[in-house]
């Protein structure tokens, strides 16, 4: 796996897709490859988000620590990202991610990433656009949910 391949992988991540190739190559160069043995935590819920990960190989499970015990929310595979929103905010990790088998990931540290975002406004614009898309999608989902909710409540109200 070389820089060029990593660059190609990064390009497929929606959040980074719109970034100019030269900047993205730099980001690939500033990132490092990390291997996680099976069972090792990639991020821990509650920790400060200091990096995002792009899974190159292997699988990881997303676990939320609920009062009733850990709940597995999802399983991530190659080309999926972990914690990319976290490095844009200062919020702690909202879930734990654990390597299921041996995971090879590209680690994008917060500090160089944020510096690039700050210094190259084009990057911020493309990230902003991507986030706006996501927000829009979430809004739509929310609207649907609320409508559903309302409908259910009305039904329930009738039932009660």
């Amino acid at each position: 796996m070389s820089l060029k391949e990593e660059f190609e992988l990064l390009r497929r991540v929606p959040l980074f897709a719109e970034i100019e190739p030269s900047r993205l190559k730099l980001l690939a160069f500033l990132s490092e490859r990390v291997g996680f043995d099976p069972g090792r935590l990639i991020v821990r819920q509650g920790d400060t988000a200091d990096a995002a990960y792009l899974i190159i190989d292997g699988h990881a499970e997303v676990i939320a620590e609920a009062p009733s015990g850990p709940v597995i929310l999802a399983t991530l595979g190659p080309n999926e990202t972990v914690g990319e929103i976290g490095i844009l905010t200062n919020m702690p990790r909202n879930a734990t991610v654990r390597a299921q088998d041996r995971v090879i990931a590209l680690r994008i540290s917060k500090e160089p990433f944020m510096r690039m975002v700050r210094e190259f406004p084009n990057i911020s614009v493309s990230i902003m656009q991507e986030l706006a898309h996501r927000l829009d999608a979430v809004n739509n989902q929310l609207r649907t949910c609320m409508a559903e909710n309302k409908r259910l409540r009305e039904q329930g109200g009738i039932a009660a």
Partner: protein
Amino acid sequence: MKPVAIKGLIGAVGNVEGVLATPRPRIWRWFDRDSRRAAAPPAPPPQRAPVERDPLEPSIYRFILRYSLRQQLVLLLLTLLSFPFLYYSLELPKIITNRAIKPHYVSQTIFGHPFAQIPYLMLLCFAFLLLVFINGAFKYYINTYKGRLGERMLRRFRYQLYQRLLLFPLSYFHKNSSAQIIPMITAECDTLGGFAGDAVALPAFQGGTLLTNLFFMFMQNPVLGAAAVALYPVQGYVIPKLQRKVNQLNRMRVRTVRQVADRVQETASGMADIVANDAGKLQLSYFAHLLGTIYDIRFESYQRKFFAKFLNNFLGQLTPFFFFSIGGYLVIRGPLSIGGLLAVLIAYKDLASPFNELLTFYQSFQDSKIKYEQIVEQFAPPGIIEARLQPGEPETVTRLAGEITVANLSLAEDDSSRVVDGISFTVPLDRQIAVIGQSGSGKSELARLLARLIQPSGGRITIGGTDLASFSAATVGRRIGYVGPTPYLFAGTLFDNLLVGLRHAPTRPAQYPPAVGRRRARQLTEAAKAGNIDFDIHADWIDYKSAGVADREELSHRITKVLAGLGCENDVYSLGLRGRLDPEAEPGAAQRLLEARKALARRLADEGISHLVETYDVESFNRNASVAENLLFGTPIGPVFDFEALADNHYVLQVLAKVGLVDDLIGAGREVAETMVELFADLPPDHSFFEQYSFISANDLPEFAAILARTEKGGTSALATPDRTRLLSLPFKLIAARHRFDVIDEAMQQRLLAARRVFRADLPVPARAQIEFFDAVGYNAAASVQDNILFGKIAYGEADAPVRVPAALAEVVDALELRQTVIEVGLGHNVGPAGSRLSLALRQMAGIARAVLKRPDLLILDEATSALDGQAQARVMKGIKEEFAGRGIIWVLHRASLARNFDHVLVLSNGKLQEQGDPTELFQRRDSLLTLLAATE
């Protein structure tokens, strides 16, 4: 903290040289003519015998005569003794030509022996040769003697200045720049040594010659003799007058040069702020202004100096004018014979040389005099600590006990505002006391007053009924510990810095082999001759008794314990892992570290994490080591095989050529350079990414871009050698596992292995000392302790590696009881100038540990933990309070809430003691200042 104790030095100097300190011989008054201070009547004889005279004399001649009168007389005597030989060596050639080589030889008898011509000639010639030899020997001896005398005087002078410096009040260093002191002790006084050698013999000899010649002239003809000296009074009046102005200019120049030194230091210290504010131009202009001032002064001084020379030459030539005119007239008229005039003219010619010598000497004397006085003046700041408080090594240092009583203590600033204003309290010495107050409340000043670092302007402090001001420096420095917010670490090892409070005088003499021992003894005798301290710097100075240990080994454990108490033992352990151990000095430790290497390998295998460390193997390429390390397969010792310089190394190039790798590596370099130029080219040059990530610095990037442009035409093979070298330097830095460049592929790795074998096999014998090869069963003295245990590289890109490998390593180290050894290596860590190679937190810890190790009766801490985080602070506080159970602590705290666990608290505000008492009670009262202060945090 005082770095060196000064033992009985002043006493020694005073006794030996006291005899010579009587009023100066009359002849020297002349030299001090325009020095008002010296014109004053000689100092009254000492009233009481034990009063010690200031070793630093106010004028240079007093200094020279006080410390070298005997040597000066010897020098004078030697000069006089040499004179007859010199005279005869000039006379003998005349006798040889006039008597021995004459065609009509008249038989000569010496001591009744008649001599034939040839034997006579030979006798005279050999006598001549002998005289030449004797003269040369005299000259050699006198010059060496002078040089040695001068150097001794210079050494004494510098030493006295430095000794003075140690007595300066602390306030001096707050108000003045140390940059001005440095040229005074170094460059400015350098010429004084040379002058000290000439001070007596030269004027005596030249003056004597002048007088003899004058006497001869008067004998020949009183009138012409009078004519020869007629202008001396004029010269003697005018020249010093002109010289005085030159002296003033010289003084100004010396002062301005000091300002230059000051400026340079300011610039160096304030570099970050100059750059941050783009203040360079202002600095440059200021500097140029200073240089301009020096130029002006120099120019004026040259004009006056050379005018004086011109005038002197003119006056000097006026005399021959009189000789020719008046003498000629007298010869023509009859009363004077022509032979007489010629004799006087020849004698007059002989006058000129000594006279000019004296004049030159006068100028150099004036120069030295000014330098000396200007330096001495600067070394007597107001408030200098009385020398009697710094006596010799005391027999015993009394322990402090009883109560500390502070009565009406005040400290006034220069503008007479009171920083500490009438503070009074009494506390038993064995209590742990907190001092609280906002900044500017006078709490830091109170701490420094209690440590006697500064003197109060009113009131007093007594400990156990004795005035603190009357304690000897040794008692205060050893029985009271003081740690300020920024403890100073001296350049050297951490160990040395921790022991500053335990090294006051040699405790055990150094063991030398006989030859070295004799040389040391000679050095110490010489030190005593120049009035320097005669302690052996190589002796063991550690005061084990004060530290409460028996020997070095116990001390080392004690240090570890203190560091553990402060919670920084692990930091020193980490330093130790990165440090180097000398296997020759400690073969046992090296052996056990090798055992640790095996144990770690076993442990990693047991835990199933062997892949986290890639072990060195001479037969395989290490993907986690750089190409350079893979090629050398060893640690470079000197600069020859420095990784940065490998591309320039002739032998390395030879090896690469032999395996045909040069062009391919240059090609790899080209690829790296292309990537770097592509990624970094449009970043601003000062961007931190360059330093953190780039293989090429911002400055070099354009150059590499240019090299790449040149490769467009004919590839890398068409490049000039320097370009090829630059490209070649890049792949050496590549680490395959980390940098993910394609260029170090499997095939390349195999070829690098071949190069490694050739490098090793062909290495010429002299170069073998420049590298220590990795050896699976041997200790590598050039590598760090950690590298020796790992014998490999921690794998890049393994999430577990940075945690699990050090943990396994620590367990192995503990299991083999090597932790103490590693900590000792860590104590040998060089802290850098002013401790710059340690974190601020560790510097503070070292400052505290230093004070704890000397086990004082009273420990004063002034915001000594401000660089630590809350948790570390709490740990340090707990550790110190346990360590000092039953002994006194006065702790100036920067947060009121920290006062909770102390026996007693003093709350200061505006220099006054606002309240004091048990902290629990004060915290309970809602209106107490302490509660208020704690609430605002």
